[in-house]
């Protein structure tokens, strides 16, 4: 039984639709908290999830939403000021307005830690309090974030006390993922923080206790509270208790997401019950549905392929769903029974392995070096990569490539000498992935490699075969676009240094460009 039956009735009476007002959102995710903190693994992903939900289901237009990842405090302030100007303009046109500020990241000693910069919680609270929006909602998912509610001396409680009224709400609501003396916890299994994961699951539909196709603020909080407390009860850090400050004037609840307009959805039929976990193409949890028998539950998901799993005793029920425009029913009877050892999410918290196959070319900058010594070469390569192994969004890889080509060696006064060459290269790379969108990732890193080259002179038996071996440090950048469950298209550029010392000591630079397809194993 969910803990909010009373408030759900009130919400049914009082909730105002998301589409009746102009909505603005500032969504912030920052894994780094400066000195004394360890990078969070999922802060950015949390922010992207909430941003996606608010713009898809929450009535926030794309151009009214700001997503800031790894931004400074000044940039946050500037974004808030910018949204406030837009809010004022909307109000000047007679529109009701709502502002949602979400933050996932570090907080400590009363400050939000945005990299090396700090934004005092009190400043954020005042900024929200002074915002021009009629309704201001702050959602903070960070350690000790409950401090933002201290002024009211609130205590963690499972649900709002929402008053039924015919007037529109106005005022401030602050929700923090943990109380002022608690840590907010992340989960590798959930690929996110507990609080945001359950908040997102609730907003996608599992919090719709009333079954009216709308998830209100009260429903979302009640759901996130109970699931977060339950989900963290047995963790090493102990139970995590979300808190809130509710200062809405007028009355009524606020609808945060509307499920009905969503084009695609998974529908869990009334006859089934249990905890369903929905995974995306990377086998990372997207949402959970904790369902009891008797009511249908709808999860509004973006189009795409998903895997639904449910533990049923000693077996797993697993089904792959392709969400498009229509709703898809997820009935237990349609799911495949598998042993627990075949859990598709297994290992999701460990390194993510993939293999990249690529084709490309190599070009030395120095024209003299390109004359015979290191002519432009075609290369085919493979790279084994482990992501999120050494740290969040850090990846390492080992690669090998073979290639070669033919060219003419031009020496002064000598008839051009045809040559063929073969190259073998390989190296180890370390880089950081930066998610640009859900499917587009940029990577930047460094690489130490070796390069071996052999060349022969066909038609010139008098000339012996030559070879060269050296180490070549360099930097690299990569862009990958995920176009399938396991497949990504990758373009990569490397800038390398090479020390040549046979004819003369010479420092050379060369570039390697490649395009390929990356195949993700197991996830």
């Amino acid at each position, binding site marked *: 039984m969910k803990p909010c039956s009373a408030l759900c009735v009130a919400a049914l009476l009082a909730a105002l639709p998301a589409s009746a007002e102009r909505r603005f959102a500032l969504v912030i995710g920052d894994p780094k908290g400066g000195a004394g903190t360890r990078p969070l693994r999922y802060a950015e992903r949390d922010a992207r999830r909430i941003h996606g939900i608010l713009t898809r289901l929450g009535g926030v237009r794309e151009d009214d939403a700001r997503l800031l990842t790894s931004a400074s405090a000044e940039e946050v302030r500037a974004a808030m000021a910018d949204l406030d100007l837009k809010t004022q303009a909307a109000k000047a046109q007679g529109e009701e307005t709502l502002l949602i500020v979400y933050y996932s990241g570090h907080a400590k000693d009363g400050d939000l830690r945005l990299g090396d910069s700090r934004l005092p919680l009190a400043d954020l609270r005042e900024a929200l309090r002074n915002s021009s929006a009629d309704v201001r909602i702050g959602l903070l998912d960070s350690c000790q974030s409950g401090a933002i509610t201290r002024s009211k001396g609130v205590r963690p409680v499972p649900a709002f006390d929402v008053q039924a009224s015919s007037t529109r709400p106005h005022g401030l609501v602050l929700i923090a993922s943990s109380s002022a003396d608690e840590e907010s916890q992340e989960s590798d299994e959930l690929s996110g923080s507990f609080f945001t994961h359950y908040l997102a699951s609730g907003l996608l539909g599992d919090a719709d206790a009333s079954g009216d196709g709308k998830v209100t603020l009260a429903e979302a909080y009640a759901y996130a509270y109970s699931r977060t407390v339950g989900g963290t009860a047995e963790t090493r850090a102990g139970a995590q208790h979300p808190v809130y400050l509710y200062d809405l004037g007028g009355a009524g609840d606020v609808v945060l997401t509307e499920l009905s307009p969503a084009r695609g959805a998974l529908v869990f039929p009334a006859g089934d019950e249990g905890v369903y976990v929905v995974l995306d193409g990377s086998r990372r949890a997207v949402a959970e549905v904790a369902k009891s028998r008797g009511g249908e539950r709808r999860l509004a998901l973006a189009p795409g392929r998903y895997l639904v799993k449910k533990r049923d005793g000693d077996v797993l029920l697993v089904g792959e769903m392709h969400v498009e425009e229509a709703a898809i029913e997820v009935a237990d009877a349609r799911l495949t029974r598998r042993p627990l050892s075949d859990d598709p999410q297994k290992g999701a918290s460990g390194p993510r392995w993939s293999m990249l196959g690529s084709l490309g070319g190599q070009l030395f900058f120095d024209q003299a070096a390109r*004359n015979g*010594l290191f002519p432009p070469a075609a290369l085919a390569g493979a790279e084994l990569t482990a992501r999120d192994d050494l740290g969040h969004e850090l990846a390492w890889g080992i690669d090998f490539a073979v290639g070669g080509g033919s060219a003419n060696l031009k020496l*002064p006064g000598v*008839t051009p000498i045809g040559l063929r060459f073969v190259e073998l290269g390989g190296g180890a790379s370390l880089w950081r992935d930066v998610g640009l969108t859900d499917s587009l990732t940029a990577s930047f890193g460094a690489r130490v490699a070796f390069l071996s080259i052999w060349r022969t002179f066909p038609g010139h038996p008098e000339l012996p075969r*030559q070879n060269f071996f050296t*180490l070549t440090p360099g930097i690299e950048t990569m862009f990958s676009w995920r176009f399938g469950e396991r497949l990504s298209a990758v373009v990569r550029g490397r800038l390398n240094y*090479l020390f040549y*010392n046979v004819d003369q000591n010479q420092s050379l630079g060369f570039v390697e460009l490649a395009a390929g397809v990356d195949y993700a194993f197991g996830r």
Partner: protein
Amino acid sequence: MRSAAERRLAVAIALACACGNLSNEDVAYLEAIPQRGALRLSVPAGASGQPACAIGPADVWTSARTTGDAINAGLDGILAMVETIRGFPPSTRAPDQRTWGPWPDQSHPGVQARVVIARELDAQGVPWRWIYTFAARRPPGDWLPILEGEFFGAQARDGVGRLVIHFENSRALGIANPKDPTFPGRLYYDLTGDPRTISLDLTDNPLGFGLVGFDYFWAGYNDGHGRFDYALPPDANGCRAEVTTWFTAAGNGKGALHIHCPLVVDGYSNICWDQSSCLTYVDDPFAVIAACNGVKPCKLGNAASCPALP
């Protein structure tokens, strides 16, 4: 167990490692060394099979081929020494000089060999002169030049050069072949145009390479015809013939024999032969040609059968 210092040293060496023989300059040096194929006297073999000749076989022309083969074999032996360096990279590289060796001469235990090639560049940086020295020694003895060469141009296949083969030194070191001459031999070659010429001066080397002392000369034209000057060993009468031959690509040709006899006989004989190396014309006042059977003066065949060669 390696110490930390050793491991650091190993890492530093690995990081600094840039090794191999990938060198454009080495290619330039190797291209300046004459190849055996480039310095080869080409004398047409003519038609295969030996038919019955109406006048008689052109033994003089047959001698041209055997002489050419002997010279080619001698040159091969000389250039093989130089070409040893193609098998391994230079030991030291200076801006305009390469040195190979010293390395132990596998064919001659106790002997060390060394090759030094230097070059000179013109104002545009194009090599115009190459000087090379192949030397050997028996330690602790001094280095003795076995072969000294000079080459003008950028690539040996179409340049001008000369070689001095110090047979006297190879004999002194005990690395000479039994048939090698005993005095310095000089080779000149010009591969710049048409004809290509090779000259082997064995004037001071009687029976070097099994040949009589003579300044041998060969010229080969692109269309296959050519000229070959050589000498025949003295006959039973002590007469020696110096032969100038002209030949076509097909193998027929004509020759002029300058006859030197101990009894003050000195004059010229002329012969022509066909593609089967059969005499077609003989004008031999001294009857040194076997087909004359000693009858002087000797005139056989038809002069019109002689090819139109200089």
